């Protein structure tokens, strides 16, 4: 389920620091800048009206992909509205790259009782 790229070159971290000053949160994959800063990947499964894992810790620059495995539609919306997916029907995915350290709470835009949290380490 968790699919992290373990090694981050020091150069990538340096580039990331420069980049994150300009755009701390960029949508992915549309944001080309965010693509360049992506140093790893992780995935979260949406199943049985839960985000799994509900809390996930990743290094800065990680692109996270949510995939909906439920028969109902879900979405991924930052609690502070910094990112928002389109509705995800069964089998559909959404990715977002977390460029900057911090804790990012999010919820499902259709079922706001569904909560998740991404902890991004520097």
């Amino acid at each position, binding site marked *: 389920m968790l699919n992290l790229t373990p090694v981050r070159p020091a150069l990538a971290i340096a580039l990331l620091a420069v980049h994150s000053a300009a755009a701390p949160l960029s949508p992915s994959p549309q944001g080309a800048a965010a693509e360049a800063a992506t140093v790893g990947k992780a995935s979260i499964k949406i199943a049985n009206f839960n985000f799994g894992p509900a809390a996930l810790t990743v290094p800065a620059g990680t692109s996270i992909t949510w995939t909906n495995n439920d*028969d109902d539609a879900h979405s991924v919306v930052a*609690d502070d509205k910094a990112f928002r997916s389109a509705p995800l029907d069964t089998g559909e995915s959404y990715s977002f790259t977390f460029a900057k350290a911090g804790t990012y709470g*999010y919820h499902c835009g*259709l*079922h*706001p*009782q569904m*909560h998740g949290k991404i902890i991004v380490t520097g």
Partner: protein
Amino acid sequence: MTKNTDHAPADAGRRDAMKCMAWAGAGVLWTISGGVASSVLATGADAAPRARGSLDFVQISDTHIGFDKAANPDTLGTLREAIAKIQALPVKPAFMIHTGDLTHLSKADEFDTVDQMLKAVNVPVFYTPGEHDTLDEGNGKLFLERYGKGTWGTGWRSFDVSGVHFIGLVNVVNLNPDGQGHLGPEQIAWLAKDVAHLSSSTPIVVYAHMPLFDAYVPWGWGTVDAQQALMPLRRFGSVTVLNGHIHQVISKVEGNLSFHTTRSTAYPQAAAGTPGASPGPLKVPADQLRHVLGVRDITRLHGRGALALVDQTLA
């Protein structure tokens, strides 16, 4: 606060509701059949006979057009059956209220299909959105373009028919991580003002998609600011609150307020809080599906405050 007037087709609903009002007061032909008095609309030969002084309308909900998963691969078929049930009612309803989740994914063609199919009933339809109807990039812009004329804000409205004051609320837009539906301060202020001039004996019908009472909060089946919003309605003798969202009938009475959720025409959901279940589409044996889908017929007889609700399944 702005009233929505742009980008919407002509609102036949409001016009026809006004016609119903006029009809309730005048223009009625009385007929006696088998000792029972009933009336027909003087100008509409096709109008069905109805009981004296009554108001009949229908609540339909959660049609979820676009959904095609295991819980019901044929939501068009079951909607067609629901429409047939409405057409077969002994009294033709004056209008219908759709309490949201018309569509499954807020797609234009899904809205088109619902619109076309419900036209078959040939009565005005008042729509309020569900969270599945506000998934477009504009957070409900598509819905408002279609059904927003004559409404305020994100689509709330009020109107009067046969002495009953109807209030359509919207509690599904920009849902917060607080885990339930919400109305917001602007709509709450509008509601207080909307009813301020009404006599306390005016029967009130409120409708919205998500329950305006705590049906089951761990599954988000409530509205976080409903108690505050409904405060100005507590002085009224009869307040009937109609909701959808949870795809099952639950009723609750709080003083003069009665709350009623209704069935979906698309798929059932688990009973509130069923251990191990989630509030998603529930697959039941095929021969059971029509026992858990349905529509609601609502009747008010003059001189009585309470409304009679008849929940009818598709079985």
